[in-house]
């Protein structure tokens, strides 16, 4: 499949081709950027507070800030960008618009409403005028209890994303009627397989919220089983990280080769990779619960085995993507064993951003392998190591790829030229350097036991003992990194805002993606059999989760032994701390 397949639309931007869809995508991108702006700024507040460099909030409020940071960046920023990019991918690669643009706007608005509900309910933690509280962090482990609006908002957001998936499937079905014998174009294939495992994994969190947490927060039921809702969260909680990652993978597969001046090395392997993600993303969640009581060691071992095999698609991706870049470099005149690296378009911020994101993902892959190991988890569980890890994955592999992609996509959907390519190049480099400092120090401090999720990791009775250097040096490194990241964030937002003030341009590149060296004609037709892969994925989930869930329900009861909700504030009388506070809930 060549880019020339879209010859009918050659020279046209996405805005020219699909003006109606371009508007929704632009709205989704801007929602994503706003979440990034607020969430990123809160990240700076936390980094400076934790490291005791600058403290201007109460340590008690730190957790409200942390909840907002987590939800806005891990959920809102990533998923809004995802729905934008997947809508682009489906319409561009199928060369047809969505079936009904009103439906597209409907899911977008639903996601916005969900976000606002969640955001306001979290904000209630620091603004007295808002009578809500949702200081439960983005994992909302019961029996910490949030205001019902928090759970309702999450449900609306997730259902909105479900409808977005339905939108892509409808568009594909419409295309299928007109093209009954064609292979699914690769970008659409990626969007659809990702949507399928999203449906599969979000069932867990939907069940957890709708059946247990929401009725409990409303006072309809009195009790929850904390281990059960926690397990259902992680049933969703690992697949969600692949949900964020898949748009970045898509960019690496279909944009990076083109930007490098070459073609995707192998379309069939790309399909295999996405099928593996569909199969293995969900039945691995228990690896977040290696140190949980109430789950037998055998189930943990099974989850670990699945997790380790989930490395395979990422390792394959590393090869295919780098080989595609090398292909581009050699077509541009690069030579030698490694001399071709010099021939890559390093001045292009879109390319450089994505390439550096990929490089950091290689490092993140290593810390992820440690996290995946079952007994070595004793060393790193819930330490700052884990935070270092996911700032390399979602915080760089995903976020930096998205920002780099935005430098290409925003001109495509607005018809305006990027304000400054030099600023953009500087931005991706500053982000890379900032994250190097921050994430490196976080990993290091995790190894000497510094915990995550804490406002003041300075204890009365003992000190941390780093293997090298001092705690102060580690903290300085984190603070420096956080400042650099905030600078990079400001550079990105400035570029985006100034671009939107630019005049319309007619010299923009056409809306295309990479061709392939080895095309879909090389891949077995069975790879496109989505029903088959979905069925196998469901079977794997049933195998992986039936017994652990049954044993959790068996030992703790479906609704637990009379466990009420807690909102543990410092001013609470210590005697009351031990009691359920549902009575004071509005």
């Amino acid at each position: 499949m060549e880019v020339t397949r879209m010859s009918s639309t050659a020279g046209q931007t996405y805005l020219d081709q699909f003006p109606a869809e371009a508007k929704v995508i632009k709205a989704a991108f801007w929602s994503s950027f706003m979440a990034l702006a607020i969430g990123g700024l809160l990240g700076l507040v936390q980094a400076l507070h934790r490291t005791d460099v600058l403290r201007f909030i109460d340590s008690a409020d730190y957790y409200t800030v942390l909840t907002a940071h987590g939800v806005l960046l891990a959920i809102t920023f990533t998923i809004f960008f995802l729905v934008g990019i997947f809508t682009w991918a489906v319409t561009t690669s199928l060369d047809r618009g969505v079936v009904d643009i009103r439906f597209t706007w409907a899911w977008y608005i639903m996601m916005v409403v969900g976000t606002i509900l969640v955001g306001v309910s979290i904000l209630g933690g620091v603004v007295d005028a808002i009578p809500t509280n949702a200081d439960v962090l983005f994992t909302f482990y019961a029996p910490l209890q949030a205001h019902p609006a928090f759970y309702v908002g999450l449900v609306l957001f997730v259902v909105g994303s479900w409808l977005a998936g339905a939108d892509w499937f409808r568009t594909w079905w419409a295309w299928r009627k007109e093209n009954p014998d064609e292979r699914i174009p690769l970008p659409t294939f990626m969007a659809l397989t990702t949507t399928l495992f999203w449906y599969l994994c979000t069932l867990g969190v939907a069940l957890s919220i709708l059946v247990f947490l929401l009725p409990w927060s409303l006072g309809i039921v009195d009790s929850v089983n904390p281990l059960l809702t926690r397990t259902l969260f992680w049933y969703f909680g690992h697949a969600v990280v692949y949900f964020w990652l898949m748009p970045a993978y898509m960019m690496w597969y279909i944009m990076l080769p083109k930007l490098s001046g070459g073609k995707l090395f192998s379309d069939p392997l790309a399909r295999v990779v996405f099928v593996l993600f569909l199969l293995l993303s969900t039945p691995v969640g228990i690896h977040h619960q290696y140190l949980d009581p109430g789950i037998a060691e055998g189930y943990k071992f099974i989850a670990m085995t699945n997790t380790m095999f989930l490395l395979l698609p990422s390792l394959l991706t590393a090869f295919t993507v780098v080989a595609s870049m090398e292909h581009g470099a050699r077509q541009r005149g690069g030579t030698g064993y490694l001399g071709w690296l010099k021939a890559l378009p390093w001045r292009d911020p879109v390319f450089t951003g994505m390439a550096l994101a990929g490089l950091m993902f290689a490092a993140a892959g290593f810390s992820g392998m440690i996290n995946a190991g079952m007994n070595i988890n004793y060393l790193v569980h819930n330490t700052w190591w884990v935070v270092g890890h996911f700032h390399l994955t979602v915080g760089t592999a995903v976020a930096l790829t998205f920002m780099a992609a935005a430098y290409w996509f925003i001109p495509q959907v607005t018809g305006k030229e990027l304000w400054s390519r030099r600023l953009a190049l500087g931005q991706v480099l500053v982000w890379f350097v900032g994250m190097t400092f921050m994430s490196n120090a976080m990993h290091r401090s995790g190894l000497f036991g510094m915990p995550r999720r804490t406002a003041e990791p300075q204890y009365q009775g003992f000190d941390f003992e780093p293997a090298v250097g001092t705690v102060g040096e580690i903290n300085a490194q984190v603070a420096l990194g956080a400042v650099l990241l905030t600078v990079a964030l400001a550079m990105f937002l400035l570029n985006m805002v100034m671009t939107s003030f630019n005049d319309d341009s007619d010299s923009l590149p056409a809306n295309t993606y990479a061709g392939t060296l080895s095309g879909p004609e090389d891949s077995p037709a069975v790879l496109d059999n989505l029903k088959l892969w979905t069925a196998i994925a469901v079977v794997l989930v049933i195998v992986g989760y039936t017994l652990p869930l049954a044993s959790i329900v068996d030992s703790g009861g479906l609704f637990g032994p009379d466990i009420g909700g807690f909102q543990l504030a410092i001013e609470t009388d210590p005697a009351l701390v031990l009691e359920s506070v549902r009575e004071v809930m509005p």
Partner: protein
Amino acid sequence: MRISKGALLVVIAVLVPFVVEFRTALSWFGIELSILESLVLGGMAVLAVVLWAVWPPNGNAEAELSGSS
């Protein structure tokens, strides 16, 4: 220039993690660098890379690579 300015910036950025972790790696061999020493070492590494990049390469390799910026 042996490499483009963009590539030079990227090389310098990628040096950062190496400089940071070099200190940790050395400590396993009993050599403890202070932060200042690390900074000086990093500065020297950057300087070396910049010199290498702007130094005219041997022969006519420059002409060959000029299109790759």
